[in-house]
């Protein structure tokens, strides 16, 4: 594994972790923009723009884009989140040039009006699809409620109304302000030479406009409360909690990752033994999510509606015990085994490394090897977990529930 980095004159950051030990190469553009960078007037534009990117530019039509990705046998996709929009592909090394050319074209799309009008239908269908998924409905409400007034409270998809009202001029403006070379990272992982990466970056991206987009990063006091969305036809009650956790630069990040595994992994965790093993719920998990300036612990479970209050009490009991007593050495060692094995398994494929490479640069502006990842996880102590719990005690601060119940009261 060899790491390289460079910056083009226009500010595009190029990073690569290269090896000959794999068969494929992953390449991706990570754009530092997402729903948190939007305004009310353009809610949903980051995600809609990600779709529009695939409609091509003056050289490549939408059909060309779809066709060429298939011709090179690419495994590719794009994703939009609160803080990031990414476009990526894994291909055999001989197709890296063609694939990078195409991905680069996506970053500077034509945004044609007829494509815009047609794709709007697809976005509205996507919103409809998620509307039929209770856990996603809970997630949307959770982000809006917990981060009320904070940029992270903005919906990635937007609403039917906001997307319907969006114009292509507004999208052009957003693209002009956010898709600047200094706001983009080109990341490459896998079987390839550094000289080739540099050549491709210069060939396909050197004429992009320079500049960076600013982002206001602030901390946040979460909004407490319980929010109920009644869906009478739902068979289960879906419940989500969210509370504050370390942000992306916090020294206790690795501890937070391990705590989430101890408390809320899908097997053998505290929530597993308390809720899943006895059959009270279908699933219960706690995850740790880092953002710029803030982080969250997010818990979710789904079970029989009539058991909801009891389940909420069981979750509270798990939280209180761990806040009071911390975790055992044995639990921590086990969580480390799980996380280290996951890191190694995902690193075996260039796509897995690409994601880690891009995320580390977006959030921490630095490279971290697999070995460093593993060392950081192995170095966490039970006393650091106690420090973490003292600063970020687990709590049912913001609660959202979706299901047939008309009221939910507990405590």
């Amino acid at each position, binding site marked *: 594994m060899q790491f390289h980095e460079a910056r083009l004159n226009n500010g595009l950051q190029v990073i690569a972790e290269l090896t000959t*030990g*794999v*068969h*494929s190469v992953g390449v991706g553009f990570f754009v530092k923009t997402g729903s948190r960078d939007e305004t009310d007037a353009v809610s949903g534009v980051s995600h809609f723009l990600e779709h529009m990117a695939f409609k091509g530019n003056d050289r490549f039509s939408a*059909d060309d*884009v*779809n*066709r060429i*990705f*298939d*011709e*090179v*046998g*690419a*495994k590719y996709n794009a994703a939009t989140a609160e803080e990031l929009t990414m476009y990526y592909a*894994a*291909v*055999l090394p001989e197709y890296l040039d063609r694939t990078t050319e195409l991905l680069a074209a996506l970053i500077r799309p034509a945004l044609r009006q007829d494509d815009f009008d*047609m*794709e*709007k*239908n*697809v976005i*509205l*269908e*996507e919103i*409809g*699809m998620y*509307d*039929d*998924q*209770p856990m996603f409905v809970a997630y949307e409400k959770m982000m809006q409620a917990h981060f009320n007034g904070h940029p992270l409270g903005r919906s990635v998809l937007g609403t039917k109304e906001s997307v319907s009202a969006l114009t292509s001029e507004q999208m052009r403006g957003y693209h002009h302000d956010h898709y600047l070379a200094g706001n983009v990272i080109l990341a490459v992982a896998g079987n390839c030479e550094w000289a080739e990466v540099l050549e491709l970056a210069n060939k396909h991206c050197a004429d992009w406009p320079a500049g960076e987009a600013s982002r206001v990063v602030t901390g946040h006091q979460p909004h407490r409360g319980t929010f109920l969305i009644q869906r009478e*036809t*739902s*068979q*289960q009650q*879906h419940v989500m909690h969210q509370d504050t956790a370390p942000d992306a630069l916090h020294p206790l990040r690795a501890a937070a990752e391990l705590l989430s595994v101890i408390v809320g992994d899908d*097997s*053998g965790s505290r929530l597993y*033994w308390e809720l*899943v*093993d*006895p*059959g*009270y719920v*279908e*699933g219960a998990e706690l995850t740790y999510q880092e953002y710029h300036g803030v982080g969250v612990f997010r818990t979710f479970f*789904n*079970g*029989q509606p009539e058991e909801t209050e009891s389940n909420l009490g069981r979750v509270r009991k798990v939280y209180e015990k761990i806040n009071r007593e911390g975790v055992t050495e044995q639990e921590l*060692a*086990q969580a480390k*085994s799980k996380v*280290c*094995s*996951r890191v*190694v*398994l995902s690193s*075996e*494929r260039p796509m897995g490394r690409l994601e880690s490479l891009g995320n580390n640069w977006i959030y921490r502006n630095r490279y971290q090897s697999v070995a460093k990842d593993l060392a950081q996880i192995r170095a966490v102590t039970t006393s650091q977990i106690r420090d973490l719990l003292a600063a970020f005690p687990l709590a049912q601060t913001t609660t959202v529930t979706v299901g047939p119940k008309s009221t939910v009261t507990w405590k």
Partner: protein
Amino acid sequence: MPGQQVQTIQLPNGLTLLIEPMADVQSAAFSLLVPAGSIYDPPDQAGCASVLVELLVRGAGELDSQGLTNALDNLGLQRSESAERRYVSFGGATLAENLPAALRLYADIVRRPHLPDDQFEAAVAGSEQTLLSIEDEPRQKIMVELRRMCYPDPWGKPSEGSLEGLANLSMPTVKQHFQRCFRPNESILGVAGNVDPAEIRALVEDAFGDWAAQPEPAYLSGPRGAYRDHIEHESTQTQIGIAFDSVPYRDPDYYSAWAAVGVLSGGSSSRLFTEVRERRGLCYAVHAGLTSSKDDGRVLCYAGTTVERAQETLDVTLQEIRRLRGSIQNDELDRCKARAKSSLIMQQESSSGRAASLANDWFHLGRVVSLSEIRGQIESLTVARLHAHLEKYPPQDFTILTLGPQPLEVPNAVS
């Protein structure tokens, strides 16, 4: 693909062990298939295999439930276990040095589970929760029900069982299922990764070698389901499921069938994506895939769309499926080949992908197909062969299921 070597070892008790060493990875993975899946559920107690799987990991060998989970977790094993139709399937991946210890634990799980009586209710409750969660996921629900309609019984039944079946289930039935069905003959263990084949072979012979063979249990067969149905459901979108007959994995025509479905729905330049989503903006999700039991192949198509666009979506999707006959172009086949080539090469980066393929190949074909052989098969495809296949197995007699607020009209001409 050069250098790929698979060892096949037949234990005297009938267990097949397949080992593929992979030098470039640090991990190792296994896939263990035991022929004890949901087709063997007593007809009035559907869900028996699913509850058995819940119970198998609640203590085995020397370890109680918590001890066993801890032991597996300490090995960093990323694992899954589930009742499928023919098999109960166990899979796991971890750092290569931990795989031998994991395999020893699985020998306990499949041979010496405690099946504790006091865990029965919790296991049933867990299975009930799984069934209820499918009800809240319309995209999953439609495919479960489509499969039930288009495959003959018991191959179409959901492997999760039914709420009625679970209500009838008793612990003695679950134990009987274990005693009757768990056996080494016809079980398959695929292992892939950075392993020493001699060490794995010795370990498996030691841990599974004295597992006694048993006769294959019987199961009841029945007819397939209806060709048309609608499930009333209050939702934003209408879900559309379409199925038609194709060929199973072991059929000489399989790769032609695979490529024909690839032209229909294999990538973003495929026909369904282009015509239904890109040209008309009718859907976010529309796709079709070839699935195979041992004897029957089916193409299963899915589209989800809001109520007012649902009729057009169904019409256009059916039109595209019917248009396939005689219309495939060279460049469409070339793109299928390119995607297949890249998938095959990238499979060599995934120990769990390879372990699953080894076991799956053995089940369907009784041998492991090398990646080079698959590549040869794909390279040899021609448009003429795809067209000949579609004449022999034309997409017709569609099974059509909708789920949503309103039923749709299905033109008679298409069925």
